[in-house]
């Protein structure tokens, strides 16, 4: 098979590190290796580098440098926002609000708090495009709500949430309930996928906490940031030397911070042009794939979606099988199929937008990046129809389009009938 060409279309998983970022980071390994907490010159130089990185990121987020905390990942920042705020304000209330399509880095800590620390959580449903409304959020607020966490853009289906409008609605609710801006409930948004595509100005967004990380925007892996508006209190998760305002102990990742700042500056500068370029490619690809392959369903909002995100269900095909064939042709993509997950659960996001399980198993995500060209996509579009045809020939399943949400209703009546009255297929793992 043709493996001469490689097309990487999994930028939502991670991006390559920009060579300019690597150059910026290089001195901080062997030359400027000092610990920013040290008093002597090498320590002070490291401290200065860290401060400059923080200031650079603050310029992009339009906040004060002191409002930024360096962490090790987007996951850590999300955890810190959810667990940190919930625990710090547990005396005021124990209610949390989030959405059904959040990343597990938000959902799992929320679940943990609900299960083990006496919190209650409202998980808002989304519409068939994956959106929540400000009205939904406000309707879920209670006297004891301390945190609302809604992601800026979804990692699987690319749907963008109206964060600024949600923030305004929460502020109005607070005002009507006699609360100040610095009082709970606070709004956190996971902006990891939005970085490089959407406006990260926290003043315009009106959020109280915001998560970003390096590895999604051509920066290094192993570095994340949590923006925490001045006045919002956090209970730390990591204790030790008291770094990062005593909120996140551990020797700072100076090289990572420098690289992240460099990556963000580049991303901010190239954002507009890149968005225009990728939106055009995205819409062209979605139209082409629907024209060339029968029984394709687009997952996510048609326009309110990240410029680089394409997520489709290729009916009657199991996603992992599709990925293996694409991989054999040098194409890297992702799937929401259970067979590609550790837990054997299909994508909670595809299910949350009301698609049947069969659609989740059949979902394929292509996420473009800076290196993606029209030629790359044309190559993928040439490979997809024969692969789909082959896998459909192998498959005994014939789904009907536009199946309703009911579990299993996507199966054709013939298959459904054949399956009735039988026992499950998985048996003893001897």
């Amino acid at each position, binding site marked *: 098979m043709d493996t001469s060409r490689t097309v990487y279309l999994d930028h939502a998983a991670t991006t390559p590190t920009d060579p300019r970022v690597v150059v910026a980071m290089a001195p901080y390994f062997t030359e400027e290796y000092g610990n920013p907490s040290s008093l002597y010159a090498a320590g002070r130089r490291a401290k200065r580098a860290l401060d400059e990185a923080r200031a650079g990121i603050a310029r992009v987020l339009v906040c004060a440098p002191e409002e930024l905390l360096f962490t090790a990942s987007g996951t850590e920042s999300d955890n810190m926002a959810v667990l940190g705020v919930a625990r710090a304000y547990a005396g005021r209330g124990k209610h949390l609000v989030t959405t059904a399509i959040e990343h597990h880095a938000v959902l799992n800590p929320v679940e943990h708090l609900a299960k083990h620390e006496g919190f209650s959580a409202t998980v808002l449903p989304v519409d068939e495009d994956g959106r929540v409304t400000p009205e939904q959020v406000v309707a879920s607020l209670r006297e004891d709500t301390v945190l609302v966490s809604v992601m800026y853009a979804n990692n699987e289906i690319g749907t963008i949430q109206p964060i600024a409008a949600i923030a305004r609605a929460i502020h109005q609710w607070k005002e009507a309930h006699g609360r100040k801006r610095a009082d709970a409930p606070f709004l956190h948004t996971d902006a990891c996928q939005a970085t490089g595509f959407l406006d990260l100005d926290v003043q315009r967004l009106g959020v109280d906490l915001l998560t970003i990380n390096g590895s999604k925007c051509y920066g290094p892996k192993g570095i994340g940031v949590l923006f925490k508006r001045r006045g919002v209190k956090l209970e730390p998760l990591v204790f030790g030397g008291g770094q990062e305002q005593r909120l996140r102990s551990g020797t700072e990742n100076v090289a990572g911070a420098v690289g992240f700042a460099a990556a963000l500056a580049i991303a901010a500068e190239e954002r507009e042009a890149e968005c225009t370029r990728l939106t055009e490619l995205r819409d062209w690809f979605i139209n082409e794939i629907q024209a060339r392959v029968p029984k394709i369903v687009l997952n996510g909002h048609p326009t309110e979606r990240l410029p680089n995100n394409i997520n489709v269900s290729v009916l009657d095909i199991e996603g992992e*099988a599709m990925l293996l064939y694409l991989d054999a042709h040098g194409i890297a993509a992702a799937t929401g199929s259970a067979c590609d997950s550790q837990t054997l659960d299909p994508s909670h996001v595809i299910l949350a937008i009301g698609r049947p399980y069969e659609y989740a198993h059949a979902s394929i995500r292509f996420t473009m990046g800076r290196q993606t060209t029209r030629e790359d996509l044309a190559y993928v579009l040439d490979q997809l129809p024969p692969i789909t045809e082959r896998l459909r020939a192998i498959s005994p399943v014939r789904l009907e389009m536009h199946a309703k949400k009911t*579990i299993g209703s996507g*199966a054709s009546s013939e298959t459904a009938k*054949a*399956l009735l009255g039988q026992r*499950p*297929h998985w048996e003893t793992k001897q």
Partner: protein
Amino acid sequence: MHPTDKKLTSTQMQDAEIVNERTGEKWVYSEIVKDHFFHPRNLLLEDPQEGQFDAVGIVGSPACGDVMKIWIKVDPTTDRIADLKWQTFGCGSAIASTSMFSVMCTEDGGIQLTNALQIKPQHVMERLAGLPNRKIHCSVLADKAFRKAANEYFRASGQHQRVIVEHARVVDDRLNITDKDIEEAVLEGAQTLEDVQRKLKVGVGNPDAIPEIEQLIRFYHEKYYG
């Protein structure tokens, strides 16, 4: 016959395996699995002709991500499998293991039904030079579909004493909870893992059983309420 269809010596099997040196866990598909995935044997690509097969068996559900369908033709004088064809909606592991299962049933001019019914998922896995741990679960359809097809053949040919009756199977080995228990819990209205756990305390005994229990809940929910 493809070269990889042959039975393997243990050294060959070791060569074909890709093992994480630290954990000992296989983490990618072996060359044999890939070969069977990309070149499946005994696929049925067109609708079967009238009389082409004696019986058909189908198991799984699209909602669970796997459906397996197997057709068989049996030589009544020798009881050997004269032909076996299949289709699957499933991942790489499901496709490759069914392909290998079909090879094992039809090799040497077709094996006898009695012997074919002895083939278990682990025998198929051995011939495939192993599967990644988390994918073993996906490879257990072929023998189930085959058993259904064989039962249909036994009934059609009046060999009722040969029909294999399935028994309840233990899912959680620490609390001895079976798939039947979960089926009953779903029939009593349980819809989520938590519901079933409340009714049966299932999953408390063995946390490793939870993914499978969740699939069972989905399966029975679809069967009775889908």
